[in-house]
């Protein structure tokens, strides 16, 4: 597997250059090459959404994207959501509205919601539920997650 590709990817505002196998998944690149373990692998089959990151602002499940596909593009992971030590309203919302228990799905939930609010700053409850429909939570339940997104939408407007 000597066949390696040079890629440049901007992750959370920082430019990274790496040589990667063409088959390396973006999520493994983020977690293992860049050591950003906030992005989780829940299912490996693109069901659960725990690995959701933003690729040029669009929410993608990074276990179904190759690292080489991110070449020349910008990635936002959970580690880059807070700015200058200040929590993003979504992060505040998840804390304030009890939108998490174990926290495993939370990074993916926050990034899917981040993409939703960028497109639609005032989503209805239905639109929020649709926006996070690619993300599974197995402990908190969705009610408080929806409240957390509503909290953030209110704060950001």
């Amino acid at each position, binding site marked *: 597997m000597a066949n390696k590709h040079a890629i440049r990817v901007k992750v959370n505002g920082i430019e990274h250059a790496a040589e990667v196998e063409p088959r390396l998944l973006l999520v493994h690149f983020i977690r293992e090459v860049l050591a950003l373990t*906030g992005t989780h*692998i829940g299912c490996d089959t693109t069901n659960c959404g725990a690995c959701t990151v933003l690729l040029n602002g669009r929410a993608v499940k990074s276990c179904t994207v190759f690292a080489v596909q991110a070449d020349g593009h910008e990635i936002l992971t*959970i580690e880059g*959501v807070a700015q200058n030590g200040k929590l993003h309203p979504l992060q505040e919302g998840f804390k304030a509205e009890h939108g*998490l228990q174990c*926290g495993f799905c*939370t990074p993916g939930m926050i990034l899917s919601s981040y993409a939703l609010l960028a497109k639609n700053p005032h989503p209805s409850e239905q639109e929020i539920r649709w926006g996070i429909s690619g993300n599974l939570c197995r402990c908190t339940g969705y009610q408080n997650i929806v409240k957390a997104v509503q909290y953030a939408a209110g704060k950001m407007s």
Partner: protein
Amino acid sequence: MLQQTSPEIGGMGHSVKRKEDLRFIQGKGTYVDDVRLPGMVYGHMVRSPYAHARIKGVNTEAAKALPGVLAVITGEDLAKAGLAWMPTLFHDKQMVLATGKVLFQSQEVAFVVAEDRYTAADAAELIEVD
């Protein structure tokens, strides 16, 4: 009647802010998959595609020959070490890796240990189960 302690005391009848959330909402939690230890190696399971089938043989030669592969373990290997059947928390015994016959789909048949996860997965594909 609602039981409630006074606000100064808190506790009963009062909501509590969780202390652990701050790390989870910033991607700073440490889950098992986030742990990196010096000298850590990776495992990959070979599972049965069949629900009920006899195992005539498991050929691990090609998998063992792959650079980066440290070990390939089959049910036969465990049987030689007396480890093929192990007690569980429910006081019964179960097969660790299948010997002779698989009894359900996705039953564990062989286990690969390698220096990285992609090599382990490659090696698992090279194992031939008859």
